[in-house]
């Protein structure tokens, strides 16, 4: 008799296989083929699409994507560390404060991005207010640039940085800080030499958890960057729609996936699996 657990796994496995793994396989196949005259995909088989990833024409977009994801990650860590530190020392209010961090997360990502368009656009709130106060005569170009995209990414993924840092700081032995103080360390010295090194695993986890979705972002650069601040995700979408170059779009997707997997692998190898 076949064990029951096999049947339990069967539907989940079927969905994963047919609608996730098989599609990824098709992308692998497409990435090795050539774009047809009418936008289809066919033979000959080639590595040309992967070679094109290093074309300077696209290199600019790839480099910018890494720079923007890096900036967003840095911003999230800088914002999240003091916040996580404060929450971990808040006693009974911990749950409330954590829930307040997570609250925007439960609302639509699209709406959260739109909220920033509402603030930043030429006729948006910030420009209207500055104009009303007579500080500017022409609207400041706040929307549709790299800065707007980075702010949107930080806003979108900040909770991903707060949670791992919080759980790291929460487990920190308070006695170590007391020991540092007893031995004459000033609070900032204890922070720099005791707390920061001990939160390195939390920092790494937070960094990877923000960097991965930022690098693969599509909606944020699309809405806040306009056409001017494209990232890899937008380039992929572009290849599958207007450019109709599915093989190159597939190669781009797999390149992005490779970076994601490499980062995750490095994190898991270093800090173990129990943290995920």
């Amino acid at each position, binding site marked *: 008799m076949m064990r029951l*657990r096999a049947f*339990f*796994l069967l539907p989940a496995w079927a969905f994963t296989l047919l609608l*996730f793994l098989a599609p990824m396989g098709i992308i692998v196949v497409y990435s090795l083929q050539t774009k047809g005259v009418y936008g289809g995909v066919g033979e000959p088989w080639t590595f040309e699409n992967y070679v094109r990833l290093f074309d300077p024409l696209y290199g600019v977009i790839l480099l910018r994507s890494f720079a923007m994801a890096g900036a967003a990650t840095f911003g999230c860590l800088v914002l999240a560390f003091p916040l996580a530190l404060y929450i971990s020392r808040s006693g009974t209010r911990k749950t409330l404060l954590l829930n307040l961090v997570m609250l925007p997360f439960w609302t639509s990502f699209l709406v959260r991005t739109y909220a920033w368009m509402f603030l930043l656009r030429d*006729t*948006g709130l910030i420009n209207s207010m500055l104009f009303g106060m007579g500080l500017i005569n022409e609207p400041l170009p706040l929307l549709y640039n790299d800065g707007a995209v980075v702010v949107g990414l930080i806003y979108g993924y*900040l909770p991903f940085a707060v949670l791992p840092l919080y759980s790291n700081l929460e487990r920190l032995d308070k006695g170590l800080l007391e020991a540092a103080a007893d031995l004459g360390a000033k609070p900032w010295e204890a922070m720099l030499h005791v707390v920061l090194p001990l939160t390195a695993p939390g920092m790494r986890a937070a960094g990877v958890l923000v960097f991965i979705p930022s690098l693969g972002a*599509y909606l944020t650069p699309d809405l806040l960057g306009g056409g001017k601040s494209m990232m890899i995700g937008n380039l992929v*979408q572009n290849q599958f729609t207007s450019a109709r170059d599915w093989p190159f779009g597939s190669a781009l997707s797999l390149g992005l996936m490779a970076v994601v997997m490499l980062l995750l692998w490095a994190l898991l190898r270093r800090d173990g699996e129990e943290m995920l």
Partner: protein
Amino acid sequence: MKRLLPLYVIAIYAFLHVPLLILCGFSFNSSKFTVWEGFSLVWYEAMWNDGALAEATLNSLVIAVVSTVVATAVGTLGAYGLWKKNSRLLSGSMYLSLVTPEIITGIAMLATFQWAFRYLHLQLGMTTVILAHVTFSMAYVLLVVMARLRTADPALEEAALDLGATEWQAFRLVTLPMLKPGIAAAALLAFTVSFDDYVITALVAGVDSETLPMVLYAMARRGANPVVSAISTVIFVGLGLLIVVSERLQKA
């Protein structure tokens, strides 16, 4: 530092919440522009009378409810199966979709559907959207239910088996009741990720399956539109109510 930290923390909470509060506040503005002119419900009226919007909302609700039910059932059974026999290859490939950029999942599914349509008499529409939604929300269900199962004691089921229960009875009468809060939380998460999704949905949707996020996206792209603020406010309140109700149900 002691005094600066609370100020810094307040500033971050403001950064997180003020943009959304402002958006909600201005949905009650009588002016189309971002200057406050007085309280009004015109944008809610406009929203209420928008037929395309109502249709998209209905589509979104149907998709979210169907895919939540299927994903919760499939994901819970899958998590149980993985708990019984953990295979890293299996669990790894099931969790992989959580870290895959949505745009990649979307185009890969689109490519697959297009390929399958050569052999099946189908087209992009509600079915493809629901299939896509089940697949990505199932991974969230697996994650949440698995977390709950890790704290469970396998000895309980073994005791049930020793006392003569069948495997199915042990699952149905011992483990499943214990998992209820986890399943409820997983279903709530599945519902919100499905109701909210734009990127994957827009790629695999057809003419008959425009969803609320797709309409919102189109409106946001077109320029300032207070109706978007009104819809956003309704979504906040709706999801907020859903969370409160589900917390109540879990406690009851």
